Each structure stands twice: as structure tokens, then as C-alpha cells.
């Protein structure tokens, strides 16, 4: 039977680097996608993944087995994101020449309007992915992080509450608000 995350982290605390390698392989992809969907910047997401694990290594003595490892990991990740990314909010936004033009600057409404689609038509997978990306980027950050932790990572409200340090009620209301907004933005694309 495979070892639990908790057992692996305890094993790592006691000096077993192989246990850490298993933890890394189990969670890095999820971590990368969490960061990627928070910022949609591959390079930044990669840096954040690396830095999160380095912080886990540095703070391994503080991990207590009563906390689930994923909660611990995403608490580190979320705090790191706050440290590193929110300071960019005041920076001028950059556009990438590699992005298709429709991904730059236009709103979901613009994107949907720009398609000469019959009212009943549905979007294909690539279009859907682009629309979802646009929609997520337009969410307020607090809602986006709750939504991604809940839906992308499958974390429970209670875990998200611990990670973000906010009441469960606030997690729920942010989740509700996020889905309401996303529904408004994407509703027409659903056909």
C-alpha cells in the first residue's frame, strides 16, 4: 500500500530524501497548474513551483503530522504567490506577441461577439479553453484563488479556509460569487 503524504513528509523530516521525491512527483503537476491558472505565465509558474518546494524544504521542521500535507503545501504556495505576484499588480501589464490577437485585451463578451456563430452553436475544446482562461483572468483574485483551489485542486472548503486563513463562510461566498460571474461571462458560449 503506498505511503500517505503525511507518512512521506514525516519520513522526510527524519532524513529520507526518497520520501520527498515521491511527494514532489505526486504534487508538482497540481501545483504548477494552480500557479499557471493564477497567473497564466509559464515561466513564473515554474519559478513558483520551485520556490514552493524550497520553502517546504526549509520549513520541514515546522510541519506537524496533524495537518494534511496538501493543506500545508498549498498554504506555502498561496503565501508565496501573495508575496511574489501581488506586487506585480501595480506594474504595467505586458502583452505577448506569441498570443493570438483575440487573447489580448478583449473581454469575453468581445470574444463571443466576434465569432460569427449561429445562436445554438457550441464552442470547441480549444475555444473553450481560451474562453475559460479569459474568464478566470477577469475574476477578482480572491475569488479566483478560492475557485482554483476548490475546482482545480479538489480541496474542501475547510481546507481552503485553513490555507487562506479566512472563514469557511467567506470561502463559500467567494466560490458562489466566482461561479456566478463565470456563468455570466461564459453562459452564452455554452450555447
Amino acid at each position, binding site marked *: 500500500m503506498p505511503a500517505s503524504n503525511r507518512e512521506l513528509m514525516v519520513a522526510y523530516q527524519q532524513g529520507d530524501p526518497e520520501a520527498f521525491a515521491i511527494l514532489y512527483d505526486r504534487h508538482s503537476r497540481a501545483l504548477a497548474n494552480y500557479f499557471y491558472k493564477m497567473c497564466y505565465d*509559464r515561466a513564473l509558474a*515554474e519559478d513558483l513551483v520551485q520556490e514552493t518546494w524550497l520553502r517546504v524544504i526549509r520549513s520541514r521542521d515546522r510541519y506537524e503530522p496533524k495537518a494534511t500535507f496538501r493543506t500545508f503545501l498549498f498554504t506555502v504556495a498561496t503565501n508565496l504567490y501573495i508575496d511574489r505576484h501581488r506586487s506585480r499588480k501595480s*506594474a504595467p501589464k505586458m502583452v505577448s506577441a506569441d498570443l493570438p490577437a483575440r487573447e*489580448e485585451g478583449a473581454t469575453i463578451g468581445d470574444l463571443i461577439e466576434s465569432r460569427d456563430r449561429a445562436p445554438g452553436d457550441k464552442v470547441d*475544446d480549444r475555444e473553450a479553453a481560451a474562453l475559460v482562461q479569459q474568464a478566470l483572468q477577469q475574476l477578482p483574485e480572491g475569488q479566483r484563488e478560492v475557485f482554483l483551489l476548490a475546482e482545480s485542486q479538489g480541496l474542501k472548503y475547510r481546507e481552503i479556509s485553513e490555507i487562506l486563513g479566512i472563514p469557511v463562510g467567506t470561502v463559500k461566498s467567494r466560490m*458562489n460569487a466566482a461561479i456566478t460571474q463565470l456563468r455570466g461571462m461564459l453562459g452564452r458560449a*455554452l450555447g
Partner: protein
Amino acid sequence: MRQELIDLLRGELGEGEERELRERLGSDATLRQELDELASLLGLLRRGEEIAPLPATRARVLAAARGAVAPSLGARLRALPGLVAFRMRRSVAFRVAAVSLVAHSLLMAILYRMTLPPLGPEREPPPFDVSIQEKAPERFTPDGEFVRRLRARGYGHHLRLGLYGVEGQGRRIQSSMESWMARQAPDGSFGDVERTAQVALALLAEGDCSMHATRRGRALAAAVAFLIREASRPEAGDATIAALIEDYAIAFEPRRQEALVGHLRAIDRILPRLRAEAIDGEGVALAKMAGLELPPALAAVAARSALLADRGRLLSSPATRLAATAVLSKGQIGLEPATLREWLRPLFSAAMEGAESDPLALLTLQAPYRL
């Protein structure tokens, strides 16, 4: 009620709550429809591009993990009895060690300085100067005119903000730059052409930063060599790469420098007008882009995007007309020349007939796409 439906879909309801809600769903068609719609929405939202961390990141992290597992000094100290007394001894020992270390460092520094040859032209220049000067003697000299222009125009400022978001935080800038340099591939790239161009300019603009000048010079030399190679590859050396290189102000031929400066000035003049005028229907996307406070070099990329977004409807608004002018002043924007000519012909005609009163349109006559 929507909250409860969301909770149901997420499996967050208690047993009793779930049973009660399912009973209501059984008798309420509207509620069932609402649930279906929410399920579809969540299904759609779960789609999207996924990424995986690079193997190099894994290697670095695991190496750090292996290096960190030796029992720390702190742990050993905590395990010792008589902790208070030991801490006192440790404190004295640390002070003695620190004083000794400083004294040795000072002595070594003095000895090293005494053995150095005098500063002067006979000293070998760092690798940065050698490799870059071979390509373009004036432009890539660290203290050259080109770099001074870059700094004067605030490129470093914008790039620092854009890339790192750490204006004024020297240590974090340095940390970010080192992180970038660690990611450089053997061919000199930082992932792709655009990213390499960004980083190369950031490295240039950070020329007065106190960090590892030699390492920075090597990284920059390799990045520029990579960009030159990319631009000259038949399959990749298209206008897009050339435009990118110009966008990031690292064009290589000295004769293009003045054109580049002219282009940047034109973009600077156009931006405020874009913000003021791009408010009509078809210019909305452009207005949003102009409102992003883009750094000047990237404004051209945004303008190109506006052209692409507008397709054949170019010139139907003052905003896109200005965007066209802005883009034209660059000469190359990564579009097929035939397409560009077709889209821009009316603007040229207007300018040549004098019907276009906008002096910016005259810039088009200087562009390589003149008709």
C-alpha cells in the same frame, strides 16, 4: 439555493442536507435544470491548458532536498541537555569564530589586492565585451550610447516591473535575474525567442546593477547569439522574429538604429491619442489594450494585435487607423506583406492624396510598405 447546488456538486453537503436537496430536485424541474446548468459550467471550467514542471526544476528541488536532510545544528543543540548553559558557551564560541573569520577575510583581501596588476587598458576585458563587440561594436558595449538610450527611455524600469514586479527592490531583482540566468539553455535561449529578447533587454538595462557582471555578460552574449541565429534561420527568420527583435530594441544592424529610434518616438506620440480616441465600437479592443499602459516597445505588439483582431475591417475607425500608422512605422509586424498592403492601401491612398490630415499618416510614406 445556488450555493446548496454547488455544494451538492462538490460533495460538500452533510448526509441529511443532501437527502433533503435530492428530494426537492425530484419534484422541482427548475431546480434540476439549474443543477444541470451548473454541472455543465463546472465541466467547461475544468477544461483548459495544463502544464507540467520541467525536469530541470525537479532535479534542482530534489538536490536541495537531499542537501537539507542532514540533521541541522539547531536540532543537535536542542537534543543536548543543559541547553541554557550550552547556549552561553555557543554564544562565546560564535563570537570568537566570527571575529576570526572577519580578520582572515581582511587579510586575504589585502594580500589579493597587492598581487593584482594595475588597472588599465592592458587588462583583459570580460567575456561580455569580447563576444558582443564582435557582432556590433557600438551597440552592445556596456557603457555604449545604445545602452544609455535604453536606460534613458526607461526600458529597464518597464521590464523590471513587467518581468519581476519588483521596482526598487534590488535584492529581489538580483534574485530574479539569477533565476533567469540559471534557466538559460546551452544554446543561449531562455525558453523562446520572445522570452529571450525580454531577458536580454533586462540584462542590458540592468548593466549598472552590482551583480555578477561577468556572468551577466556571458548570459547576454549567449542570448543575443541565439536571437541572431533564430533570425537568420530560413524557417524561423520571418518577419515575426525580426519584429520581435526590434520590439525589444535589440536589432543588430547599426544602420537600423535610427529607424528604430524614430519608430519608438512615433509610438510615444501615438499612445496618448490612442487612449483618447479609441472609444468607438470597433476600436474597443484596441482601447483596452492602449489603456493597459503598455511600455512603448510593446505598444507596437498591441497595435499589431489590433490589426489581427480587426482583420479586414481595418481603417473603419480612427483608433485602428492610428494603430495601423503605429505599426507601419515599424515596418515589420509579422504579417504577410500582401495582406498588409491590402489592408493598408486605403490609408496610403488617403495620405498621398492629402485627404488624411493626420500628420502621423505621413509616417507611412517612410515605411518599407510604401505603395
